């Protein structure tokens, strides 16, 4: 007993575990009374409505603050807008290039199989039948040496030179048309399997440049993603830093709000809304900038398309793309604000 009181003098009463009943009693004591206890006129709204109202309250508070600090808001919005506009514009460009490339790729891929010169017309026809039986082959056209020579004569001015030859130098050719739905890789493997035959001397595939283009597009897409991720990170940091500064400049207010019973959620909400507002405005700005860029490039693009006698117009983000950019801004804004709020608000405790 004496030991106990000795400890108590130093105030080191051992902590007790709280029982369930105690906790329940405390909750009851802290509850400000049910709604029905309050006078009708002053009754707070029901819980879900109250929650919504508080969010509205916080949103309005954030909007009011943003209006007051106009320069600050404008600058942050501009940074976010430009950071979001870059990947958005890149995406639009890529989509346009893909569209153009798609147009050029029209017409199914074709491979030419050059056969031995001595092959009999009968054997060539049989060979053509075999090739046509392959999966993925849509059509096989036989070009006899005579046809080829005639075509060559018609298409060039080597008439005189050709007259000098006493035999036809051209081999029979099978022009194989592959299915349009095949990927470039599949076309290549199909053509190679067809070429892997003793009767085929040489094979030529007409899609190397398409493959290269595809590879480049893949590369560009990957680059777009990495740049996009980096810029998204930048947006989060910029908004996080802005919110951090806001929190710092409103430290006094946060302290007082906590002092008179503002919960963490209550204190946090206006800052989260502020972050979302920056993201939202930045997203809208990014959309506007992208459309502006498209509008600026529309004229030159038309000229270029005319020069290639192509029918092509730049497509923009569209409604879905624009909404995506704005939504991305919103989410990034919220994330940025959250990083700042999580670290700095909890650290502010009333003195």
């Amino acid at each position, binding site marked *: 007993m004496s030991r106990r009181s000795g400890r108590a003098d130093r105030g080191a009463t051992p902590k007790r575990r709280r029982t369930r009943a105690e906790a329940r009693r405390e909750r009851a*004591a802290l509850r*400000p009374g049910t709604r029905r206890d309050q006078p009708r006129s002053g009754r707070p*709204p029901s819980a879900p409505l109250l929650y919504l109202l508080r969010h509205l309250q916080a949103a309005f508070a954030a909007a009011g603050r943003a209006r007051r600090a106009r320069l600050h808001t404008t600058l942050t919005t501009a940074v976010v807008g430009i950071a979001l506009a870059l990947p958005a514009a890149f995406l639009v460009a890529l989509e346009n290039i893909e569209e153009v490339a798609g147009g050029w790729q029209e017409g199914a891929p074709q491979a030419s199989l050059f056969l031995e010169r001595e092959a009999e017309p009968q054997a060539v026809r049989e060979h053509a039948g075999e090739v046509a039986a392959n999966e993925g082959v849509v059509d096989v056209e036989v070009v006899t040496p005579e046809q080829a020579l005639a075509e060559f004569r018609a298409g060039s001015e080597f008439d005189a030179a050709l007259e000098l030859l006493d035999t036809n130098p051209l081999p029979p050719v099978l022009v194989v048309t592959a299915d349009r739905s095949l990927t470039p890789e599949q076309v290549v493997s199909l053509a190679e399997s067809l070429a892997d035959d003793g009767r085929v001397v040489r094979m030529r595939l007409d899609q190397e440049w398409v493959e290269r283009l595809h590879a480049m597009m893949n590369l560009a897409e990957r680059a777009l993603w990495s740049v996009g991720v980096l810029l998204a990170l930048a947006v989060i940091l910029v908004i996080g830093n802005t919110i951090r500064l806001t929190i710092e400049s409103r430290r*006094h207010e946060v302290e007082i709000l906590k*002092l*008179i019973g*503002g919960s963490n959620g209550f204190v946090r909400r206006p800052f989260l809304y502020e972050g979302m507002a920056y993201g939202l405005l930045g997203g809208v700005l990014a959309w506007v900038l992208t459309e502006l860029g498209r509008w600026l490039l529309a004229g030159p693009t038309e000229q270029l398309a005319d020069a290639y006698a192509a029918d092509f117009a730049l497509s923009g983000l569209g409604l879905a793309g624009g909404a995506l950019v704005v939504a991305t801004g919103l989410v990034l804004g919220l994330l940025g604000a959250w990083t700042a709020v999580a670290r700095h608000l909890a650290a502010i405790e009333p003195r």
Partner: protein
Amino acid sequence: MIHFDRVSKRYPRAGRDGLRGVSLEIAEGELVFITGHSGAGKTTLLRLIPLLERPSGGRLTVAGVDVDQLPRRRIPLLRQRIGVTFQDHRLLQDRSVFENVAMPLEIAGVPRREAARRVRAALDKVGLLAKEQVDPVTLSGGEQQRVGIARAVVNRPPVLLADEPTGNLDPELSNEIMGLFTSFQAIGTTVLIATHDLDLVERLGYRMITLEQGELRADRPAREGVG
């Protein structure tokens, strides 16, 4: 209403004790003055009640709530039920008097019209209804203290704490402010006031607790017929 059981508070950084094993029982509806020299632990005692600081030992119960074991996320609920005024007023300078007083109601989610009614009632009580749209900077010390009191009572808390409410005010103003606190006690609020204005305390005759170096030195009950 408020129950201290061998409560102590040690400030490890400063290496000194704010409170040493203080045991105290304050009944509902009581008005109690806490006196003592500066550094005696008056402020610490008040700050423990709304958990502005955690006790380092002992048990502290407020309105049946075991405050020393209260989890962090429940602290705001506790603070909403305790009105506090500060020596340095703690008002927001970029908001009007009205907005300052309305803050606790905003936190509690009281509808706007009802909140306005209650804010005006509280301001009327402290005699500042005419200055509701004024910025706190333009007010005198006594007026700012009264705004702080209005903010503390606007949500009708069962417990009211005041730290040096008459700090640098002249006797007449001090009387006025003390009059306010006694009127809150008269409607059933438990009031704790830390002050070093012994003359005033003597004159009013309420229960007086004296602290010295963090320990309870004297506990003089209220004079007959007072409180």
